[in-house]
């Protein structure tokens, strides 16, 4: 490290993003003499808010030494192996996007083309039936990898966590590990003459100075706004502008996946935890009032809803996430559409990139340029995944879904869908968050059946293919039966930790 590298880092924000950032920075840079201070603003969380996470969170927790037993025990959360998408109009079959691979190679050939060919020869079994992770989820079982499963393919899992409980846990950990914190109702950036941030002014004439800042204030991005960073709207890409969160009755046994149900005016997601089912509803104010949405959501979710709270959703990205000496994390950098619940993932992506580019001297223009470029492409590829979900819907006559089919696509997504339709090949870009298996599940699930497949699979005889497919199905059936039920697994995991 050379002279002038930031030492006093001030994190301004609220809820899980600011505390996750505090934990990550403290752990990674504490030994380098970087002091982490949090200015905590009032929470905006509602009891019904949930973090339906993606699989990458678990390794981050491991790195942060956050024990899973504690996480699940304290938050009364649940595991999830994926998402099931249901079109309630029945115009398209339901499908699973599970966090695991499909099938296994047959004579060294990728599985998807083998499946496509078998399908052409009359196979009736769906792609997701060859996904061990999806099969376990459907049976209400967790998937605990053994050496056979690891040799077979890839499997992963994520969590459903009450947002309030998870944020409280992160705060507890951050404070315990020596992060300094100030509570404030409001924080206002004070700029140096050169335009960089000098500190933040809090009510009651308090002022906290630092040399580097994180803006985790949420969508208004208070610090970035003080630095005049513009926001580009993604309204052309997304129809939903209202998001409703509510509690529904808990489901027994607790499902080990979430379900996203499309109805005429939007979609309703059910995220089960041990305490309740968190309900998330997305719709457009152009077609539906909040009141009607609540009624419709209860009907679609099949449960009475309580504790409902509605907020506006204006997807869009800041022109840059890092400006001068301030990095925006989470919604301050980018507001995503609620589908696929990527919010916490976006926080994590922002933090991981920041760690690898954290300034080592006073001039860090090159790191900033690299960061902004990486974050932009990472966020846009996440957006593509979400866009594909709307674009490819086959819901019948409905203003919401018709508009969704007419949304603007990025050139990358256009190319990706075209290539997949032509060949079953996923055009994979730099900085992708979702993996090839995720894209395959999404595209096939939405009915994009490739017109052709890798011709090399024709060299395998149909008999061998058929035998191997049968063997895979038997393996999956047998392995699923060995797995613990989600309820049992939750009990085992929670039993290892004292209740908070």
């Amino acid at each position, binding site marked *: 490290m050379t002279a002038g590298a930031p030492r006093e880092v001030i994190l301004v924000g609220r809820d899980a993003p600011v505390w996750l950032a505090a934990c990550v920075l403290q752990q990674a840079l504490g030994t380098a003499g970087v002091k982490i201070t949090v200015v905590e603003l009032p929470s905006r969380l509602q009891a019904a808010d949930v973090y339906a996470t993606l699989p990458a969170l678990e390794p981050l927790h491991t790195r942060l030494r956050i024990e899973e037993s504690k996480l699940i025990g304290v938050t009364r959360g649940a595991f999830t192996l994926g998402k099931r998408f249901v079109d309630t109009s029945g115009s398209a079959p339901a499908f699973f996007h599970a966090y695991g691979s499909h099938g296994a190679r047959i004579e060294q050939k990728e599985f998807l083309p083998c499946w496509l060919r078998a399908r052409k020869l009359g196979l009736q079994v769906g792609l997701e039936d060859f996904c061990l992770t999806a099969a376990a989820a459907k049976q209400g079982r967790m998937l605990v990898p053994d050496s056979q499963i690891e040799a077979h393919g890839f499997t992963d899992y994520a969590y459903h966590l009450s947002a309030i409980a998870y944020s409280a846990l992160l705060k507890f950990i951050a404070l315990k590990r020596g992060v300094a914190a100030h509570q404030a109702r409001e924080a206002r950036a004070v700029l140096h003459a050169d335009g960089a941030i000098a500190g933040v002014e809090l009510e009651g004439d308090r002022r906290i100075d630092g040399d580097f800042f994180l803006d985790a204030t949420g969508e208004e991005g208070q610090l970035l706004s003080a630095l005049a960073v513009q926001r580009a709207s993604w309204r052309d890409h997304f129809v939903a502008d209202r998001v409703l969160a509510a509690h529904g009755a808990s489901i027994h046994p607790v499902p080990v996946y979430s379900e996203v149900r499309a109805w005429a005016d939007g979609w309703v997601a059910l995220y089960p935890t041990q305490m309740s089912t968190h309900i998330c509803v997305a719709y457009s104010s152009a077609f539906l009032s909040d009141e009607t949405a609540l009624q419709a959501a209860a009907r679609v979710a099949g449960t009475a809803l309580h504790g409902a709270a509605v907020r506006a959703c204006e997807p869009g990205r800041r022109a840059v996430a890092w400006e001068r000496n301030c990095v925006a994390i989470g919604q301050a950098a980018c507001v995503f559409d609620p589908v696929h619940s990527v919010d916490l993932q976006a926080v994590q992506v922002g933090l991981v990139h920041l760690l690898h580019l954290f300034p080592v001297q006073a001039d860090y223009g090159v790191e900033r340029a690299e960061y902004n470029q990486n974050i932009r492409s990472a966020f846009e590829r996440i957006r593509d995944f979400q866009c594909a979900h709307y674009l490819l819907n086959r819901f019948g006559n409905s203003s919401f879904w018709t508009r969704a089919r007419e949304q603007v696509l990025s050139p990358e997504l256009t190319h990706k869908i075209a*290539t997949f339709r032509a060949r079953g*090949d996923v055009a994979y870009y730099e900085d992708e968050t979702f993996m090839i298996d995720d894209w395959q599940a999404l595209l096939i699930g939405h009915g994009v059946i490739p017109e052709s497949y*890798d011709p090399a699979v024709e060299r395998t005889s149909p008999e061998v293919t058929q035998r191997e497919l049968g063997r895979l199905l038997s393996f999956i059936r047998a392995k699923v039966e060995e797995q613990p039920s989600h309820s049992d697994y939750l009990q085992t995991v929670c039993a290892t930790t004292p209740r908070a």
Partner: protein
Amino acid sequence: MIKVVIVGGGSAGWMCAAGLVAVLPRSHYQVTLIESDEIGTVGVGEATLPALKDFNDLLGIDESNFMRETRATFKLGIEFRDWDLPGDRYVHPFGSFGQLWGGIEFQHHWMRARQRGLNPDRFEAYSCAIRACQRNAFEFPDSQFTRSTHYAYAYHFDATLYADYLRRWAIGRGVQRMEGQVTEVALHPESGNIATLTLKSGARIEGDLFIDCTGFRSLLLGQTLGSEWQDWSHWLPCDRALAVPCERSGDLTPYTRSTAQTGGWIWRIPLQHRTGNGYVFSSRFISEEDARETLLRQLDGRALAEPKLLRFRAGRRVHAWQRNCVGIGLASGFLEPLESTSIFLIQRAIQDLLRLMPVTGAADLADRRLSDEFNRGSDALYDRIRDFLILHYVANRRSGQPLWDHVRAQELPPSLRHKMRLFEVRGHVPYYKDGFFSRDSWLAVLFGQGLRPAAYDRMADGVPLAQLDAGMRELLDRIHAHVEQMRPHSEVIENYCSDVPAARQVASL
């Protein structure tokens, strides 16, 4: 049935023919290759990258047999001499540097060890492959290797013999070879796709998909379809090479050598039966006569032929796949062989083509959706290799030499300038999902050409200093012990793939 017609029979043509028959179902594809004995191939000694082993494995080729037939030797890296300043040497190895501690890359720990007075050895000492190169040692890598001793290997071989080898292999598996020169290319009047080729003999050959392996002539892709050429010669001004084989002398090095010259650089590629040499130069900055004289003076054995002149230009076709024609090899682009990428570029193009191959019954054999994806991959690969090559020419202190001064004065591709800055500021090296080159390769050349980061990643401070000190020492011991167990390269070659191992062994008793 799809009829694939390959025009041109050098390394590109025969690698392509072999790849297609090895992978595609013969009931659906018919592969024809047209070549002419009257047209010479570039065919000088070739140095390759480790990926070639994957290609040979795809074909199911027996390694020792292939090496015997092509007079091949092993290659663990490239030695660069005199690139920064006269007398300098460094090796770009096909292997890792050091290991990760706390998830942080090795160069940061090394920088920290230096700054904190732990007196670590030179950066290159922490590479198993480099140490093996320095000792002319070789051993087959073990899949159980940890990162600290990880390396891969490539080959030096006679490219003409490799093409011959693949020709026999491919013809034995159903590729139809036609002798002749293409004199006319007819396009389909409506689609504009290539429809028919006419040979000098008058024979007409129809096809569905045409693969242009005609080298710099780019007969189909460039001359007929007019795929636009993007010129990079302002960054890479070398436009000639003089190639000459000489007698083998001294130890058999398990690496290619590249020695910087005032007008370019000289390669040295050790084969079993001779050593390949060549001077890649820029005709703007040195005359052919001077280049020839310099080359011959620097040979380490008697010249076995007259130096042969090759002409080229750095750049690439904007669309390597256009309509129903795919350019592979020099027909689609050229980057000087400084980092042995020529055969690698051919291989990658073949693999991408196989992945995106038009199929029987397709409505359109010139499906833009497939060619767009092919070209996207090809663009990224060419751009990144280009940056890596330019790095050698700009990161050095060879001032007062017109060629070198010229390149250093050019405005760099922004992508390269950015990479160099990130390294200089903080030892950061790029990571690509599937591109070239790897982080370790960038490290080798960035350090080798004399760049030094001003600071290291602050997360490296998480490792206690005493632990780092012990770890670095232990690492060095492990690398030394590992290389100690290797055999001399020449001994491995003799036992594994030489023509005369038994005779020599008897004689030496």
